[in-house]
């Protein structure tokens, strides 16, 4: 059973556009929601994370929007650049657990 559903599986955006990746979860015990960015041939790296007590977190061009009632969260990449082309994973972690549940990933391609 997939506890974190991520969509779309792949995304193509023009340079300067907005990239939006969505995730939905079922377990209300999740209390930490990180996003990871993975470039080809590299390990994933933490990009940005949010806790459910806030509805939005912004770091530069990257914003997480969180809807607790809908059990959904999304990553918005403003002014997308070719260097943002990577695979993005959302994740959710239960309080007291060290192991996050990952979404299946979204392959983002930003065309110049």
């Amino acid at each position, binding site marked *: 059973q997939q506890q974190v559903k991520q969509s779309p599986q792949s995304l193509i955006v023009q340079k300067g556009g907005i990239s939006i990746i969505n995730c939905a979860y079922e377990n209300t015990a999740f209390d930490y929601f990180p996003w990871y960015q993975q470039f080809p041939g590299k390990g*994933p790296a933490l990009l940005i994370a949010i806790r459910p007590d806030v509805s939005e977190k912004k770091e530069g061009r990257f914003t997480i929007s969180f809807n607790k009632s809908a059990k959904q969260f999304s990553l918005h990449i403003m002014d997308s650049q070719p260097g943002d082309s990577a695979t993005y994973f959302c994740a959710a972690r239960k309080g007291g657990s060290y192991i996050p549940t990952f979404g299946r990933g979204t392959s983002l391609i930003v065309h110049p």
Partner: protein
Amino acid sequence: SQTIHQWPATLVQPVGSPLSLECTVEGTSNPNLYWYRQAAGRGLQLLFYSVGIGQISSEVPQNLSASRPQDRQFILSSKKLLLSDSGFYLCAWSVQVYGYTFGSGTRLTVV
């Protein structure tokens, strides 16, 4: 600062041969350590995790095993590789509740 080392970066092994991938963490004590496999479809599959020396939990029954002989060393092994063992293997560590850091990965191709 904490760093994680994983090697080799790439490996081509024949079917039936043994495997040993090593991961070490520097700059921290008593980390939780993890092995993930990422198949061509991108998803991250947790294989093993360890909360201390000699303590290994297996998430998926398979042809692989893990060991933690030292506090900051985590080893992934196989006695006989299968074609289906090919993939991108990632080591990760965490100490604080919200920290989770991946290594650079090993690309394993079984031929």
